[in-house]
Structure formats: structure tokens, C-alpha cells
């Protein structure tokens, strides 16, 4: 008799209690999502992959001033500037970046570059899917960072950025 009571207290009751919780949860909404088929919306201030943004006119915001490179604690930004001409204009004003590279392997996603940028050109947004197969693929060039059209950077993240990271089959 003592054995049975003990058995009930130590085994059956917790077991039932556990199933009880399971049964209760069955009625609630699921929190697990099927990544990568499904994506969770990131928090508004998430800091992941950078974008080089454009003005509404389509001109690049970046003026190639290297302030981001100066602020970067990981020293992973390389900027080379050149002069705009009336025939070939990339940004308003005199100066634009011909080369802009971020070494994503060294980036610590601190966002200092975004803070330092006087024109709001470099921003960290929500694309966190940065894994890749080759080290060289982590050197993000200006072409990869520059948004294709104004405002692209603000769109919700919709899965691996198109055209930026070439996946090896």
C-alpha cells in the first residue's frame, strides 16, 4: 500500500501533470517556426548586414569620407573615394566612394559605422543570413552593399538577399 501511494506520487502524478501541460498548450498558437521556409520578423533595431543607402533621387548617400572606417573598432571597412563629375555623378557634391568594402568576418555588428556616417549612408539592417562557404565571399563590396532602389533597406527581411551572396551548389 505504501509502495502504491509512493508510486502514484512520484511517477503517475508528475506524468499526468506533464501531459496536462502538453494538452493545455495544444490549444495555443505555435511559437516554433519552420526556418528557413518561414522567417520571423526581426526587432526594429536589430543590427545585421549593412546597406549603403540611396537618396530618393537614386543618388548614393555615401560620399566616401571614410568616417565609418575611422570609427570601426574592427577596422574592417575600406573606402576609396573619387570625384564626381557632371557626366558621371554618383552622389551629390564632390566626392563619392568608388570602392567600399566591409569584411564581414571581422565585423562585430556594433553599428559604430552607422553612428559615424554624416549622411546616413551606411546602415545595419535585418538580414542576418550571412553564412557562406568561402572566406572570400565575406568581403562585401560596394555592389553587394548598395541598395538597388531607394528604401530597399527598410523593407522587412524576406530571406537570403537576392543576388548578393552566391550560393555554391
Amino acid at each position, binding site marked *: 500500500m505504501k509502495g502504491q501511494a509512493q508510486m502514484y506520487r512520484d511517477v503517475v502524478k508528475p506524468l499526468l501533470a506533464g501531459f496536462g501541460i502538453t494538452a493545455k498548450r495544444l490549444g495555443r498558437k505555435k511559437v516554433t517556426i519552420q526556418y528557413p521556409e518561414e522567417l520571423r520578423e526581426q526587432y526594429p533595431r536589430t543590427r545585421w548586414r549593412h546597406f549603403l543607402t540611396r537618396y530618393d533621387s537614386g543618388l548614393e548617400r555615401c560620399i566616401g569620407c571614410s568616417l565609418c572606417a575611422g570609427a570601426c573598432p574592427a577596422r574592417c571597412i575600406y*573606402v576609396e573615394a573619387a*570625384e564626381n563629375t557632371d557626366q558621371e555623378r554618383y552622389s551629390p557634391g564632390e566626392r563619392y566612394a568608388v570602392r567600399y568594402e566591409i569584411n564581414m568576418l571581422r565585423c562585430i555588428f556594433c553599428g559604430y559605422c552607422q553612428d559615424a556616417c554624416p549622411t546616413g549612408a551606411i546602415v545595419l539592417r535585418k538580414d542576418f543570413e550571412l553564412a557562406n562557404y568561402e572566406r572570400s565571399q565575406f568581403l562585401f563590396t560596394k555592389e553587394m552593399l548598395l541598395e538597388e532602389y531607394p528604401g530597399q533597406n527598410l523593407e522587412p527581411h524576406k530571406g537570403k538577399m537576392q543576388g548578393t551572396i552566391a550560393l555554391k551548389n
Partner: protein
Amino acid sequence: MATVAATDTVNIVINDVDLQVPKGELVVEAVKRLGHEIPIFCYHPRMKPVGMCRMCLVEVGFKQPDGSVRKMPKPQAGCTLPVSEGMVIYTDTEMVHRDRKGVLEFLLINHPLDCPVCDRGGECPLQNNTIFYGPSTSRYIDIKRHAPKAFPLSEYVTLDLERCIQCGRCVRFTEEISGDAQLAFRFRGAAMQPSTFKLTDFDSKFSGNVIEICPVGALTSSKYRFRARPWDLETSEGLCLECGNGCNVWLDHRAAKLVRVNGRTNEAINEEWTCDKGKFGHDYYNSSKRLTQPLRREGDRFVPVSWGEAYAEIAAHLGAKSAALVGSTVSNEGLFCLQKLFKDGFGSENIDHRWTRTLPAAGERVAKRHESSIASLEHKKTVLVFGADLANSQPIVHLRVRKGWFLNETRVVVAHSQTTDADSFANLLLSCKPGSLDDLAMGLERAVAEAQKTDVQGFASFKDTEKTTSVKESALREVAAMLLEGNASIVCTASIYNENKPVETLAALAKIAAATGAEFNVYAEGGNDEGAMALGVMTGRNTHEILQDCAMGDLNALWLVGADPLTLHPSRRLAEDALEAVPFLVYQGLLECEAMGYASIVLPMEAPGEHDGTYTNIEGRVQRMQQAVKNPGDGKPAWRVFSELLVRIKPGRPSFSAKEIMDEIAATHPAFAEATYDKLEKEGTPLKPVIENFYM
């Protein structure tokens, strides 16, 4: 000016600290003695103060008999105010802080604040002063002054007028230091702009310096424009080898590429200036024409080979009947190893580094090439510049001579058949007919002899001298009198060897120097030409003989060490014949060039800033330059090539480092005894004055 002769001192008080300073010293300078700082814009220690920017305001008072301090009612400009007895200076009071804020707010009214795209951003006095002393906001809401951005003052200097704070440093530089007076202020008030008078090109041999002294980004370098920001740069101490002055420079490089050259202070040589050749003439470092690997001729084309193959080829072809011609940027170490290679390896002595029309033989050379140091020239009573265009060939010597004239009342006499920049400030101009410098020197010798009442037999009469040179007797006598007053220096350069009868000219000048007690200088011309002279890189046959013998087939191999005879030799004809005829030609150099077309073997050389080495400047100062950037290809320093080859020909211990070779030079050449890497001084070590029999 910065320092006034410290004859008298006065007692002053700076921020409650009692101090004795030389009378007449400016307040800005006096406070530096305490390690305090007064912010400045327009004041420059090497130029006269003008008090244009008002950044340096301080409170000043005077001690009263009762011990109290009576302050002047208004703040004073520290850069124009000399100290006087009993002066009490405050640099850190409430009022001073308010004044500084006010001045900066005013200066920034018209400033575009485009720091992010400005090449000066990050190393800008206006930025710095604003951060330390300025207001954090502006109350100005109207439209700022606008002007065209990036106006090219010249090929090298770009003016952004919007950024100019009208401090006048650039204008004063061209008036006081370079002396070409190219820049001036046009218009007044907010419309004031520094520019050339008629908007012509800013044509100066020293224009690059205004970029460095402009306290804002108004004057920037066209060549460095947008190439880097200061925090992108690494910088190394370097030397300029564009001429023999040996100016100290900063080599600023980014991602292993040289992007900018700035002046580095060395009071003994260039103070803080550079000439435009030095500042903008270093393109070859990044040239697409750089040689990057050894090449061997096969038929009518070059194929890349390894260093080993190149060495084997050279060792097989060079012997006693070979010669080397050397350019002017090979380090002392390189020259020494070359001598050793030719003597011990090939058994040949035929090496020369000179490219002038006349190549004096051992007995004809002057005993001492540099009696006056560059720095001493500014304290001379008289400087006779004889047959030299200093501004072109020795720009920094030109600046010193001019400084002496401008500040210390040096009398400058220019004797030349051409017009030179020094003519503008010469107290006396002996402009003679072309090709008559020798007669002029002898006429002067006669004038000195007559003034000293010594024998003048054998001299041409003054009449004849005037006929041949067009210089009058009175002028010659006047110069003789000046020289005889003492503390004089006669300055020639090696370019005199391109003139008529240089040996006679120099002999006459040497006699004049001996008779008047003047110092006598025949400054070398190229980067390390003085080093080559001091090491005696002119043995066996001379340049002309070498080229002639190559042309005649008497020499069967020629090695060009960083030299292209087609551009350097006075007779292009002879150079062409020689290169065509010589059976085996080694061209070792930085860049592809015309002479390379004749070569059997081409060796890439490292530029001076790509390896360790020492160089001797015109006044015999040995200075060391350490590696700043990496060679873009497979180049080697000249010394390494020579010593590696020597080991192949004559097995022995190779040299591992430039330091080791310098030790060897010091041990074998008494003049270099103090010039080992351990002993070299920051400002460079002067050669020990040793007169080897060799030269006499």
C-alpha cells in the same frame, strides 16, 4: 619672429607663474616655455606675425608699483605682442574663453563645414581649435558665402575659397619664404580671396608648402585629392632624393601605396619646407611602368627569368672588360657593394656616376665640396652664387640663401649667364655672356688680388674681362670688397661642369676663397651624388670614356645602375652608339625606359623608400631612410643584388643587411667613421672632414 637675440631678459608672469624670457619675445612663444598653448591660425613661427585671425587673444596686464595688476581693458593678440618687463599674461580666464568662442563662431560663419569631404579633415587646425575652444552650436542662420569649389590654382594646388579663413599664411609664404610673391589677397571683407594677381597659374617651385601651412582645407593638393583621410594613412620618416639637399619628408602610404609626401622638420636642412619636385615628384613609386621581375632578352622580346638565372647570365658575361654607370639615387651601401663587386668579382675598376660635360680627373677636382653647411648659409654676410641656378637644382639651399637675405641682411651676389630666381633679391647681379664664367671668375680673382695688393701679373685686364663677359670692373671690385669683409661663402654646384672651362673657373674661385677666407662650396647635384663622390665612385675610365669604349667595341659589357645614358648624358648620339654597340648590357632600374630597349638583362630595382639605406646630402650629411613601403614586385635593393652576385662569383660571406654594409663602409672609409647605423643622429651625421690624397 620666433627667436629674438637673447641679449636681455625680462620678468613676466604667465598664469601666475613667474618667468624670465628674452626681451621682445612674442607672447605666443613665451607661453610655450611653460608648456601652455595659445590657439593660433595666422601666426607661423617662421613668418612675421600679422595678427589677422584674432584666435590668439589673451588677457594682459601690468604689475603696478603697489603690487596689484592692472589689466588692459581689451584682450590682446598674443602673436603680435612682444613681452616686456612686468607683463602679466592670462591664457586661461573666463574672458579669454569667451573671446575664443566668439572668434571661432565668427570664423565659422562663412565656413562650409564640409569636413567629411575635405582633405584636411582629421588634421585640420580649424577643426581642432573648434573642438577645444569653440562653441558647440552656431547662431548664424543666414545663407553662407558661396564660391566655386575646387578651383585649380595650379596643377598641384586646389583652392576651395569657401573654406578660407583669410589668415594670409599662403600669401605671406610666397612673399617671405619662397619669394616668388605669387599669391596676394584680392578684394576685401567677405569677398577677400587669396589668388594670383591676374588669375594666372600659381607658378612656384615651392607651392606645395602652402598646402601644409594653410590652417584649413582651403588649399589642398590636387594630386592627393580624395586619395585618403589622415586616419587611413600610415606614415614613415623618409628622405627626398630628387636632388642632393636630402630634405626630410614624411612618406604617407595607404594599403602599401605611397599617396602623399609632406615636409618633415629638420632644422639643419629643410627646416619644414619641401620643394615641389620633392612633394609631387614621387609618382614613380606607383607607376604602371615599374619593373617587377628580372627579364632576359630572347630575340626581340623580354622573357621573365628568376634572379638566379639573371645572375648566372651576368656572371658569364661581365669581366675585366666591363663597366658600370650609376644614377643618383643609389644608397651609400649600394655604391659600396657595386665597387666591391666590380673590383673583387669582375676585376674591373670602370665605374662612374657623373654625367656632366666635363669630368675632372683626380688632380683637377676641388679639395672640399662643402665648407658651408646649409644652415650656416643664412648667417653669412655675403653669399656669392656662382654659375648656379639654385632654385632649380638646390631649392632648399636657395631658400636658405634667401632667408639670410630676408632676415639677416645677407648680401647675395649672383653671377650667371642665365637669369635665375635668385636675381630677384640679389644685391648685385653679375650677369655675364654665355660661356664666359671662367673669364668672370678670373676677373674676380684679379679684383681680389688688386684689393689685397698682391701680384696681378698674368691676369687679363679688366677691359678684356668686360669685353668677354660684359661685366664691369666696378662690379667686380665691389664683389671683391664684399668678399674681403669676411664671413662670406661662395656657392657653386656641380652643374658648373657643364659650363666652359669649369676646372679653371673653380681653380680661380678656390683661390679667391683662399685669399678672402670665404667658404667654398661645389655642391653635388643628384640625390646621393655626394655619397658617390665621398666613396670615390669614379675609378678607372670615366663616363665619356666608358661610353666611347662601348661604342668602339673596347668594352664588352656595360651595367646601368638606375641610370639612362640616353637622357643623362650630354651627347645622346654617343649614348645611342654605345648602347647599340655594347655586346652585353645590364639595365637595372625602377621604371621601363628607353635604354632598357638595348638591354640583354633587365633587373628591377627597389625605390629608395622600399629598403633601408643611407644617403649623403650635398653638405656631407649622412642620413638614413628606413623601409616605408613594400616593393610592388620582385625588386631588390641594389646592394643586395651586388652582394648576392659577388658571392656567386667569389664565394664568401654574403651581406645580410644594409647596417652591416654601413659598418664596413665606416671601417674602410674614415669620412664615414661616425655614420654607422648605431651612431647616426636624428638630424643626420655630417661626414668627418677627411681629405684623402686621392682628391688633391
